[in-house]
């Protein structure tokens, strides 16, 4: 028996209209069509979704964990980037 494994795919599920697709996990499949079907069976059998995206894991280009300090820490000291310094006028109820 061949030990060659099928390619790995990342699976994204949209849980309902209006929400974005969210990464839910990964699986193996011979091609994109099989990946969608496997995703249907593995990740939506409890009514988790209405739409599936798959992308081959090798096509995901990820940030380098060793650069995390340089990439993300500078944002930590800039709380003013959150829109929390405004007074909400009276009469606006849903903010």
């Amino acid at each position: 028996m061949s030990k060659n494994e099928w390619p790995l795919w990342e699976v994204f599920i949209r849980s309902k209209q209006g929400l974005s697709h969210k990464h839910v996990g990964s699986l193996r499949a011979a091609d994109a069509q099989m990946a969608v079907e496997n995703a249907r069976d593995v990740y939506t059998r409890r009514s988790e979704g209405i739409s599936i995206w798959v992308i081959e894991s090798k096509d995901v280009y990820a940030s380098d964990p060793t650069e995390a300090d340089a990439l993300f820490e500078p944002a930590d000291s800039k709380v003013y980037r959150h829109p929390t310094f405004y007074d909400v006028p009276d009469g606006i109820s849903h903010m």
Partner: protein
Amino acid sequence: MNTLFEYTIRLADDSLILGHRMSEWCGHGPILEEDIALTNIALDLVGQATSFLAYAGETEGKKRDADALAFLRFDREYKNALLVEQPNGDFGMTMMRQFLFDAFRKPLFERLQHSSDKQLAAIAEKSLKETKYHLKHSSEWVIRLGDGTEESNGRIQDALNTLWRYTPDLFYADEVDQEMQQQGIAPDMAAVYADWNATVQHVFQEATIEIPSNNWKQTGGRKGLHSEHMGHILAELQYMQRAYPNMEW
């Protein structure tokens, strides 16, 4: 004879026995993803069987519920087609069996959902959605294996050679079917056959496999005359209820 009971039991037992066969794959699938796919199909089929058996029990009026009908009949009282009781064999055999059955079940349910019997129509309508997916899954695998390597092509062709003789049993029609058809309950089997034939011809062409020239037709399932595999299936299926009557959990 209660023809509506008899007709419903045939529908029920196809789902029940194939569902049991597919459940035998649980934990044995070729890959994790396919293992889950196979058991999903098994669960769909057992669900269909539960609906059909519950309705059969109602029409019979002898206070037998779905469990009593599933677990406490003798082999000759099961009316499933011979195809669905055939052993799983290798993955190719299982997919070929599933494909030949799904290609039959889809056109059947497409018509049965317009049955004059409201309960059968409702079960067919619900089951049709599942069956469409089963057919997509099984036909893609038949094509993939047939159009794959020399070995996979050989195995799926072997599966077809073995199972082809059991396909006429799916379309066996007797006085039960005639009476149900006259009442507008059962669909015209000739039309179901035409759709089935178109599907299998198309898929086999894409899969580059050939229908065997041997035209032997093995029938008997609808009359309760089963192959030697049936007793073994029932021994496993019925064990708990036979050993521990009325057990629930």
